Each structure stands twice: as structure tokens, then as C-alpha cells.
């Protein structure tokens, strides 16, 4: 194996710039003549806007523009990836705390900030709903205007959609033991260290927009429609985001900034504060009722899951999060009868959106915890019960979807082995284990262009965003491997719709599989040209030539690619260009519009110690094992797995938004919203991968990056219960909550 080819721990593409400070993130980019924008928001969640007076703001020296909904085309343009429900600026009514009603732009940031405070808004606070129960109350105010939902039978409620997946007959399935509980999952936020940032600049007859966006091409479409421009006049530049985790998938304030730039005739930049970012993106909280029916022999009779997700005031991609996240709620088990009802419930809170795990962690927390309850009720070991029901390779555990695409038992056994499952537990400690599964992309479209330059170096053009997952490195490794170039001779160009071909999105851990395949195909096209070239030069039949991994194999000898390339290109030089395309088409009639391209499968096991006096949980050992098919870059795989595991510890142990009565986030910002630091890690974090080259991606790779987060919470809760008897069905498992469970709550062995 080459030291930098596929399967090697090759150094990260873009790594050098990341350690020298040269990496230019959106906020680091400045345009000549740019204006600085600042949003104007109200101190409440829902309000009727009576009037907005920007006069005092415009009087501040250096202020060039103040814009309100009235300055936009009427009716105020709306956008959104699923429903076009979000106005560019609040029109008539704000629906969540932090929703902008106006924005100003000035020569300096200081002037913009001062002016934003001077915009005079008269408003009337309106009744609002911030909780699931509040939103479902028949007397609750409607979050979304029924007029925006014509013909929708649910339009008179705050339920945006109800998604049902079912097979077998749950109601008729006899069971020896039925266990039913309700679990809650808190509202948490992505907290990428890079806050969202946007710059828009008028450009001849069009516009250029820089954004921290994950899906530049999707944004291009939104902007073109809102601005009435052809796609070719909307250029989206998307430098590598400084972390995204789903929060940067879809348009937020790009449309506003674009309108401002066009109005001002100058570039306008808007860099959100962390607080504004918290108000712009979050994960849906959830309340999940699980009824598990078991036979005495430890096999499933049925699973019955009702998952209510509290989404925000605008749908963003949240309803898809609900449908796709709740869909595999029953897990990778053989279950004769299942029913999953997922509801997206609107509320007057910041819009929830994609977040690593995409709706799965919420139901996984509930269902895996309930399986532990069932195991306890049956007196069967929690690992044994899972293994007894785990889908075997090729088994269709969801009858109408991709069958099990891995030897999952290997993964589960590896985790059990690494935690010492079955070994005596040291006093005061407990162990827990859980399984996570997530559907990969259900549809997708990626194009890649690869150019083999005259000296043998390579340029890969791909529309994926590298937000830390390392897509640059993966594509470079594939091209290096296929075309025989040293890795540092491969340049990967991304993030500019004027330069790279179309890519639908960077999400669902898809890029190694979908874009990776497109890159591979583009390389294969170049290999075809090399074959033709070699045939011409050597005067032999093309069919007798094989090009593989950087070598041109003739019937009688082997030549390096570069040799054939030089001779073939001749004195004029030039290059060979290959294009690759990877589609995953929609499947009409499928509940999700398409079956899973692959399953992300993870098993997490932990050993924990609980301080009964304080409720402190110490994770003595945390094991995470993922089935990745094939690790194209094991170094990056490990970093993604461990990073996801630690992020999972965040919502498991400490993260949550706390609201006041008026729907304001009380712990807005980094002081009181706690995420794990270097001191909050398990004493030992151990990650392993299972590689059977059984994935659909290049060289048998599957997507990964989310798996290790999915089932952290149920594994930790099981360990806490084992160690202390504390029964906890609400996250996070803060010391206070554990203490309450031990001192006043339910305490069971």
C-alpha cells in the first residue's frame, strides 16, 4: 500500500493552512468598499410589528442603508428548503426571539451596531407557544398562518406534518411483556466554533455571495429564485466552513444580505455573533413514547413509537429531520410488527434544522433505553437481547428498505469485548451498551471533474464542502491512487459554483460515497483516455491495455501513467479531463422518497462511575465501534468517530437550551450553554472500526461521521443506572438530575 493512497493515514488536505492561520473562512474575507450589516431584533418571541422607524439609525454617521420588510419586494419573499415559509425579514409579525425585523449597513461595524440599536420599532407582544404541550393545546395560537398551508388538513393546528411508518399489525401482535415509557430529548445547538457569516456583492448583472453554507448549489437556487436571476448570474462562494454539523446546510440570512447589497450597490457583510447563531440554528427537542412488546424468549413482538419533535417557527429542513430521523426508530432489529409516528410540531422558537444525527438521536435515546427496560423485565442480558434480534447481513429489517448492509454482529461484539461486557464490574461502577443506526442519503446527485495535467499532477473539482470531515483528503487520495500522482500533487478545488460542477449537498455522511464515486468515475474516464492514448502511441489494440492505480499495463510491459501522458500529449501539452457523475434517483412510493444508500451503524459501550452524593458521572471508559465498510483514511475516520462520540456526550451530560416564560433563550451564548471541554472527556476513549469493504462507495466505503453520536445517551444512561440505580428518562443527565433521581426519584436496580 502507498503511504498516501487509499487506506493510508494521509495528512489532511488543507491541513497546512489550518495550522498556520492562513485558512480564510468567510469572516476572514474582506472586499473593497464593503459595508457591515447588523440585524435588528426584538426583545420577545412573537410580536405584531406596528411600525419600524429607521430614521434615527440613518442619522448615525457612516450608516448607508437601513432596510425593513417594506423595502423588499411585496409580498415579502419567502424561502425554505421544504416549505417556502421563512420571510427575508419579519413581515408584520415576528415568530421567534431573534427574528430580524430590520437590518442596517454602515461603513464600520461600530456604526452598524450603534445604528441597529437606534431603529425604533413599535410592537405588541402576542401570545406564543414554546413547548410541545403548549403548541398542541387546541386553544394555542397558530405558529404558521393557515393561508400558507392551503388544502392541508392540519393547517388549523401547530402540527406541520405527521409521518407514519408501519409494518405488521402492532395492535394484534401478542406479547409476553410490554414495556412503555416516555423519554425526552433537550433542545441543543450545533455550536460550530465558526459563527455563520455571509457576504454579498453585486456583480455586473448578478450577484456573488460568500457564505458558510454546506450546500452552495442549493443556496444558488434559492437566491436565483428570490432575486429573479438566472443561475448563471448567481455565484456562491463557500470557503471551507469552520464546523457546520448540519447547522449550515440551508440558507439563513443570505437572501437578506443579497437584497441589501443590491440595494446599496456595494458589498455587504454580516457576521453573526455566537448568540445570533444560537437563535438561528438548533436541534429539535423531542418527546418520545415507546411501547415495546417482547416474547418471553427475548425476541420482539412489536415496537410502537410516537415521537413528537418540537421544531421552530419556520420549517427549514426540520420536517425532513422528523420524517427521516424517526423512520428507523425501531433500530436494526428483526421486528414482526412496527409502528412509528413522527410529528413535527411548530412553535415560537428559533427554527430547528439539521444537526449531526438528523433526528435519529432523539428516537434512538428513547428506543434503546426502552429495550434495556425490556431486557430487564425479561431478565435477559442487554447485549444478549440485542444480539438475538440483530438483523443479519442481507436481512430486510425495514421491509421496504435497503437490507442490512454489514456484518453488524461483528461491530456489536467488538464493542462488548472492548468494554469487557460480562467481566465482573468494579464496585461502584456500571456498564451500558447501545446500538445506533441511521439511514444514509436517500437521493443524491454529484458531479466531479478531474484534470490530469501535463506533468502528472491532478486537479479535482468537487462541489462538496469540507467542513472538517476531510472530504478534500478523501478525494485527493482517490485521485492519487487512480492516477498515480503523489498526494501532494493533487489539488482539490471546492466551494465555488462558478468553478466546480454541481453537487446537490454535503449531508447525511454522503460525500465519500456519492462524490467519492463521482471522483472515481472521473478518474476512470481519464484512465480510458490514457488507454486510448497508449493504444495510439504503441499501435496496439486498446482492449489489450489496462490502466490501473497509476500504471498503464501493456501486454508486454508496464508504463507509468506519466510516461504515456507525456508522449500522448506531445509538444503542445494540455491535459486529460474526466467527468464523473453519481446519481441516486428518487424511488416513488418509498416513504422517504428513496431507500438508504447505506446504513450508518455504530455500537457504543461505556463504563461509568456515579458519585451518589453529588450525582457526578465519571465515564471511566467509552468505546465506540463503527462499521465503515472501508476506511479510505483511518486517521480522519478516527477523528470523526471520536469527535462525534464527544459531541454526543454534550447532549447526554450537559447541553440544553433553557427558556424563560417569554420564549427567550436564557443561556444564550457560551457562558451558560455548556459543551464538553478537554477536561470533560471519558478517562479512556477507545474507538474501533469494522471494515469488510461492503459499502457502496469507492473501495467498499460507507458513509460515517454521525454514527458514533447516535447512541451515546442510552449507553451512558444504562451505565449510570447499572452503577447507581438512577432511572433517568430525560436528558441531559446533569449531576443535578442524577442526584434528583437518586434522592427523590425512581431508583431501581
Amino acid at each position, binding site marked *: 500500500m502507498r503511504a498516501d493512497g487509499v487506506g493510508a493515514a494521509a495528512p489532511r488536505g488543507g491541513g497546512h493552512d489550518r495550522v*498556520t492561520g492562513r485558512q480564510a473562512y468567510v469572516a476572514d474575507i474582506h472586499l473593497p468598499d464593503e459595508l457591515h450589516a447588523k440585524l435588528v431584533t426584538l426583545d420577545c418571541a412573537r410580536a405584531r410589528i406596528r411600525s419600524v422607524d429607521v430614521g434615527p439609525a440613518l442619522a448615525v454617521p457612516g450608516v448607508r442603508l437601513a432596510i425593513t420588510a417594506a423595502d423588499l419586494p411585496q409580498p415579502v419573499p419567502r424561502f425554505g428548503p421544504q416549505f417556502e415559509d421563512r420571510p427575508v425579514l419579519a413581515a408584520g409579525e415576528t415568530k421567534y426571539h431573534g427574528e430580524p425585523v430590520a437590518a442596517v449597513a454602515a461603513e464600520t461595524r461600530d456604526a452598524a451596531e450603534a445604528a441597529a440599536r437606534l431603529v425604533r420599532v413599535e410592537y405588541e407582544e402576542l401570545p406564543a407557544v414554546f413547548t410541545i404541550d403548549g403548541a398542541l393545546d387546541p386553544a394555542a395560537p397558530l405558529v404558521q398562518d393557515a393561508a400558507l398551508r392551503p388544502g392541508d388538513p392540519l393547517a388549523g393546528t401547530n402540527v406541520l406534518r405527521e409521518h407514519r411508518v408501519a409494518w405488521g399489525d402492532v395492535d394484534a401482535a401478542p406479547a409476553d411483556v410490554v414495556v412503555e415509557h416516555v423519554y425526552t430529548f433537550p433542545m441543543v445547538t450545533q455550536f*460550530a466554533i465558526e459563527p455563520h457569516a455571509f457576504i454579498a456583492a453585486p456583480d455586473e448583472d448578478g450577484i456573488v455571495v460568500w457564505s458558510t453554507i454546506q450546500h452552495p448549489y442549493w443556496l444558488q437556487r434559492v437566491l436565483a429564485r428570490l432575486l429573479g436571476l438566472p443561475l448563471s448570474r448567481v455565484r456562491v462562494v463557500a470557503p471551507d466552513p469552520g464546523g457546520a454539523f448540519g447547522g449550515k446546510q440551508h440558507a439563513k440570512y443570505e437572501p437578506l444580505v443579497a437584497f441589501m447589497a443590491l440595494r446599496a450597490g456595494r458589498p455587504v457583510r454580516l457576521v453573526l455573533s455566537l448568540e445570533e447563531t444560537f437563535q438561528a440554528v438548533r436541534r429539535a427537542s423531542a418527546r418520545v413514547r415507546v411501547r415495546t412488546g417482547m416474547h418471553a424468549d427475548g425476541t420482539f413482538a412489536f415496537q410502537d413509537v410516537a415521537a413528537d419533535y418540537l421544531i421552530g417557527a419556520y420549517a427549514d429542513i426540520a420536517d425532513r429531520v422528523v420524517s427521516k430521523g424517526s423512520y428507523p426508530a425501531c433500530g436494526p432489529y428483526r421486528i414482526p410488527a412496527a409502528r412509528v409516528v413522527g410529528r413535527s410540531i411548530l412553535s415560537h422558537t428559533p427554527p430547528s434544522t439539521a444537526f449531526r444525527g438528523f433526528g435519529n438521536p432523539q428516537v434512538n435515546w428513547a428506543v434503546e433505553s426502552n429495550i434495556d427496560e425490556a431486557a430487564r423485565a425479561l431478565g435477559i442480558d442487554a447485549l444478549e437481547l440485542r444480539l438475538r434480534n440483530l438483523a443479519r447481513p442481507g436481512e430486510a429489517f425495514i421491509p421496504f428498505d435497503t437490507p442490512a448492509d454489514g456484518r453488524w454482529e461483528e461491530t456489536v461484539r467488538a464493542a462488548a469485548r472492548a468494554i469487557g461486557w460480562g467481566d465482573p464490574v468494579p464496585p461502584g461502577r456500571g456498564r451500558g451498551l447501545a446500538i445506533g443506526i441511521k439511514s444514509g442519503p436517500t437521493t443524491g446527485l454529484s458531479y466531479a471533474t478531474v484534470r490530469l495535467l501535463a506533468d502528472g499532477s491532478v486537479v479535482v473539482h468537487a462541489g462538496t464542502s469540507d467542513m*472538517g*470531515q476531510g472530504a478534500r483528503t478523501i478525494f485527493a487520495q482517490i485521485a492519487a491512487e487512480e492516477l498515480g500522482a503523489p498526494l501532494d500533487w493533487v489539488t482539490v478545488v471546492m466551494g465555488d459554483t462558478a468553478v466546480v460542477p454541481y453537487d446537490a449537498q454535503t449531508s447525511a455522511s454522503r460525500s465519500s460515497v456519492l462524490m467519492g464515486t463521482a471522483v472515481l468515475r472521473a478518474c476512470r474516464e481519464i484512465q480510458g483516455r490514457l488507454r486510448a492514448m497508449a493504444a495510439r502511441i504503441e499501435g496496439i489494440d486498446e482492449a489489450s491495455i489496462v490502466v490501473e492505480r497509476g500504471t498503464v499495463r501493456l501486454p508486454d510491459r508496464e508504463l507509468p501513467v506519466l510516461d504515456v501522458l507525456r508522449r500522448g500529449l506531445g509538444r503542445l501539452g494540455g491535459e486529460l479531463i474526466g467527468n464523473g457523475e453519481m446519481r441516486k434517483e428518487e424511488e416513488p412510493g418509498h416513504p422517504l422518497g428513496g431507500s438508504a444508500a447505506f446504513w450508518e451503524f455504530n455500537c457504543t459501550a461505556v463504563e461509568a462511575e456515579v458519585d451518589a452524593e453529588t450525582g457526578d458521572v465519571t465515564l471511566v471508559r467509552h468505546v465506540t465501534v463503527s462499521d465503515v465498510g472501508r476506511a479510505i483514511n483511518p486517521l480522519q475516520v478516527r477523528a470523526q468517530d471520536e469527535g462525534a462520540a464527544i459531541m454526543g456526550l454534550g447532549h447526554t451530560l450537559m447541553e440544553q437550551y433553557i427558556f424563560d416564560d417569554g420564549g427567550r433563550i436564557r443561556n444564550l451564548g*457560551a457562558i451558560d450553554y455548556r459543551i464538553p*471541554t478537554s*477536561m470533560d472527556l471519558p478517562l479512556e476513549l477507545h474507538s474501533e472500526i469494522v471494515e469488510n469493504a461492503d459499502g457502496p462507495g469507492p473501495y467498499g466505503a460507507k458513509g460515517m461521521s454521525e454514527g458514533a453520536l447516535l447512541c451515546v445517551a442510552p449507553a451512558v444512561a444504562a451505565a449510570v443506572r447499572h452503577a447507581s440505580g438512577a432511572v433517568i428518562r430525560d436528558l441531559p443527565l446533569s449531576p443535578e438530575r442524577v442526584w434528583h433521581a437518586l434522592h427523590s426519584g425512581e431508583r431501581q436496580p
Partner: protein
Amino acid sequence: MNVNGMDEVNEEARGAQGAIPIRLAVNGRQRALAVLPHHTLLDVLRDDLGLTGAKECCLVGECGACTVLVDGRTVDACLVLAVEADGAEVLTVEGLAGHGRLSRLQEAFLEKGAAQCGFCIPGQLLSAQALLDANPHPTLPEVQEAMAGNLCRCAGYEQITEAILDVAAEGGR
């Protein structure tokens, strides 16, 4: 009826000061600047000196993305007024590599795969540098303690720690 805005006194009317001249030695280079009193060291590094390696995130001293060394000690540059730093020596991530050669810490970060999205990495590197300057052979808990002021949401904490311990171990040879 509620009203937003208009509760502010006009800044100019408050007799706010103009720019104040200061001197900084940034990455070994002497700089004479005029800074507004309410601009932080982070503002001045990023906006006036174009040194965008120090990042802006929480602006409350919690995340460490803005970490730089002032007279050899790490600070959150978002919580230092630029005028306060008058006369100080400042080291930013741009000053870590000497003559285009990465420092040993920078190399170790790359080798261990510690930089993922990279946004927190300049701050991490400076905290790590200050730690090793003060304590060339830290234990694992000492590293974790010293680095706790630098959040990494990609959560490459294991990799960052390994890189630091690696460099420390080499120093001992």
C-alpha cells in the same frame, strides 16, 4: 405597546475619544498604530493588521478561538482592549512558523490529524505553545487542564492532546 430603540445616548455627544497611538511588537515586528479605546486586541489584529488567524467566536472569554500570547502568556484577545496592550509583545498563529517552516507543534497537529475544520486550531496551538514553554513535560491531566480554555466542537481533543504529548516526549530525548 413596546418600543425598541431610542434609549441610547448619541455616542458623539458623550465625548468619546479618538484614536490613541500605541506600539505593539507583533510576531517580532514593531507596529505603530492608532486604535480606538473600545476596540479589542482581537479587533485590531484582525481588522487593522489583517492577522485573521485569531478567530472570533463567543467574545466572552469562553471558547479560546481568539487566543494569542501577550508577553508570553495566553489571553483571550476578545477580552483585552488594544490600548491595554500598548508596549506588549504579541504572538499570533501567523508567527509560529519560522521562515516558512512549521513549528514542531504545528507538524504534530498535522501528523495526529488534530486539525479538522481548523477554526479552533490557531488558539489551540498558542495555548499548547504556552503550556510547553512553561512546562516542557506536562502530564495528561496537565495538558487537559491547560487546554480547557480552547473549545473544539469537532472535538479533536484526543488528537490535540496526543500531538502535545508527542512534542513534549521528543523534547525529553
